[in-house]
């Protein structure tokens, strides 16, 4: 009975006799494995990163986004009911709906979201400015997602979010059609004005610069900061009221929620004032009041134009410890669509997984194709070894080797090629995946505009799945065993008498 160590020795000796062929087969196996391992390492990594960082900031964990319900008949394909009238009409969110939800246990607030625009007092006669110039994430929210607290603190001067109120005395000049600041005046417009600013303007001064190579923030010199301050003030003087610009606001408004897309959720009272304020501004700006529609016309699919006081979306804030999913389900039962962080996460993860599966399938199919060809090469190499070793096989049989031992010897040779190729391919695949990950991360870091975005970019998208690697080695061993089965059987059945015969 041949010892295990001797099996390995005899196998490697045989393989060494056909170096070129064996190396070719091993490289082929390795190529297939490289494709599979690289795809797996990166796709898993991308998924991990996406799941851990990107999606989780889309919606707060205690917030339910509510949308006007969808009519199930809307989703029917035309052939199943092209002229069918909608049985259920689409209803929009209204104050009555919000009132009902507010009364439920576990609900802290239920409001419609308000788009808040930073404006100056002098800017009432103009169209509202877009807020895209203010792109920031509040520090507490950032801290919720980012573990590196020191980095956030270092950079926090650039990202505050301020929602505030102050009393401002204004006077509306009928002749000029313009609101003006009137600090000493007796008449105050609306009695109280809500002032909402996104950010302390000076806070937008960059005090730190991100070093992409060292992956750290470096403080700017005092001169550079002063220069930025002057430039900013100069620019703002052109656009904003200097009183507002230079005033430090007292924080009074409570942030109910924050959503990407420049939407800030604020309490209803504030929102109403804010909306009034914005409406007034818009009216003054356009001198063309919005038309009111009293007609209620449902379309074939059950949709109608929302009336005044009806909204397509809303937000529900859930109390700490309340069952958010149960509340979401209740809102759904009212006929509205809901999105929670868990649902959004699940939906997006599902969608992402589905895309990943397709990419993975393509990569694996490609890798499998190469591996299939490689198996053909393993088979061919082992077959050639058997043909070339007939005399040796005969000799081994004459010296006491059993058929089974001869079979195992050649199966071992095939398996060795498969496993060696897999291990080589795995190492090279990891190397390639690491290089790609490094390149992608570097590219992403170079492409960002806001320093805080760098915090969301991980150091690597490379991941190593040990179970997958073990499965791959096992699979390669099995497939190469199958590839070697036929030649190994042929070797076992070599007639020693004929093999040792020399004419």
């Amino acid at each position, binding site marked *: *009975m*041949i*010892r295990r*160590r*001797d099996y390995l020795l*005899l196998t490697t*000796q045989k393989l*060494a*006799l056909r170096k070129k062929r064996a190396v070719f087969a091993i490289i082929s196996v390795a190529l297939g494995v490289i494709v599979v391992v690289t795809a797996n390492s990166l796709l898993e990594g991308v998924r991990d990163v996406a799941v851990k960082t990107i999606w989780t900031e889309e919606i707060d964990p205690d917030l339910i986004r509510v949308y006007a319900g969808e009519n199930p008949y809307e989703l029917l394909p035309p052939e199943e009911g092209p002229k069918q009238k909608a049985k259920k009409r689409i209803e929009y969110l209204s104050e009555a709906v919000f009132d009902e939800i507010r009364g439920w246990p576990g609900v802290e607030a239920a409001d419609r979201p308000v788009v808040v625009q930073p404006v100056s007092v002098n800017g009432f006669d103009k169209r509202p400015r877009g807020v895209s110039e203010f792109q920031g994430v509040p520090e507490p929210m950032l801290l919720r997602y980012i573990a590196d607290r020191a980095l956030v603190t270092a950079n926090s001067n650039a990202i505050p979010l301020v929602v505030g109120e102050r009393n401002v005395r204004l006077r509306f000049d009928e002749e000029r059609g313009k609101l003006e600041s009137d600090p000493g005046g007796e008449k105050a417009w609306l009695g109280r004005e809500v002032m909402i600013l996104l950010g302390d303007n000076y806070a937008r001064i960059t005090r730190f610069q991100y070093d992409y190579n060292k992956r750290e923030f470096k403080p700017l010199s005092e001169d550079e900061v002063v220069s930025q301050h002057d430039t900013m003030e100069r620019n703002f003087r052109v656009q904003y009221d200097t009183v507002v610009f230079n005033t430090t606001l007292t924080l009074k408004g409570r942030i109910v929620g924050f959503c990407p897309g420049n939407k800030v959720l604020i309490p209803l009272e504030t929102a109403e004032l804010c909306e009034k304020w914005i409406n007034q501004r818009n009216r003054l700006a356009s001198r063309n009041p919005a038309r009111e529609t009293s007609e209620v016309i449902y379309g074939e699919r059950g949709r109608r134009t929302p009336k005044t006081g009806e909204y397509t979306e809303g937000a529900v804030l859930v109390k700490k410890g309340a069952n958010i999913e149960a509340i979401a389900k209740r809102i759904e039962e009212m006929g509205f669509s809901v999105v929670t962080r868990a649902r959004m996460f699940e939906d997006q993860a599902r969608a992402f997984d589905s895309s990943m599966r397709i990419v993975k399938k393509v990569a694996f199919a490609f890798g499998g194709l190469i591996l299939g060809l490689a198996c053909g090469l393993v088979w061919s190499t082992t077959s050639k070894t058997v043909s070339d070793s007939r*005399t*040796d096989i005969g*000799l*081994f*049989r*004459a*010296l*006491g*080797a*059993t*058929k*089974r*031992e001869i079979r195992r010897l050649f199966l071992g040779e095939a398996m060795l090629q498969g496993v060696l190729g897999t291990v080589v391919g795995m190492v090279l695949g990891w190397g390639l995946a690491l290089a790609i990950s490094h390149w992608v991360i570097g590219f992403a870091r170079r492409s960002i505009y806001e320093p805080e975005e760098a915090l969301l970019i991980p150091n690597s998208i490379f991941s190593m799945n040990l179970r997958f690697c073990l499965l791959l080695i096992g699979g390669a061993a099995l497939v190469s065993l199958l590839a070697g089965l036929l030649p190994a059987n042929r070797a076992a059945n070599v007639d*020693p*008498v004929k093999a*040792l015969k*020399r004419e």
Partner: protein
Amino acid sequence: MIHLENISVEYRLKSERVQALRNLNLHVREGSFEAIMGPSGSGKTTLIQLIAGLLTPTAGEVIVSGENLSRLGDEKISSFRNRTIGFVFQFFNLPNYYTAVDNAALPLVFAGVDERTRRLRARTLLAEFGLQDRLDHKPDQLSGGEAQRVAIARALINNPKIILADEPTGNLDRDTGGHVMELLQKINRERGVTVLMVTHDEKAAGFAQRIIRIEKGELV
């Protein structure tokens, strides 16, 4: 030691039936040195292959060292060959990728002996045959006589009871052949190993205690 009873071996060559051995009976004593002689195609090598269990007779029984070879399966017959039989071939059959030591130790690999013991035994045996300076040489670096001595060492390494030699001097010059025959005779005498040798060479046959002549598959 070796009993062949009513042995017949038949095989097909294309569409023709060839009778290699016909109703052959042979008894070989333990410790004897016997030569089998006969013209080409007379069945000498077939006889040896039968005794080694490499060939199964069409009829009759082959009993070697108390084992009826016809009744043994592949595992047992391989083990029997490994333990009981040593082969010496005309063309040496030494794989060129092994050194003299590795070649001599080869049967021990199939016996499951560890490498250290294998090498030690092979070195001792090769040194005994005067090959102490050729231990790490590959077969193509050895002379014909040296290669055949390595082959004899390989045949002896497992202390077999029988050595089957198929034309051991067939590929050697007269003098070297003589030395090889002396070595086989010495092994037979000193170790008590039964030697059964196929040869065309009358001089080589002269070393044997008995000459078995075979013609057209029958003992003459």
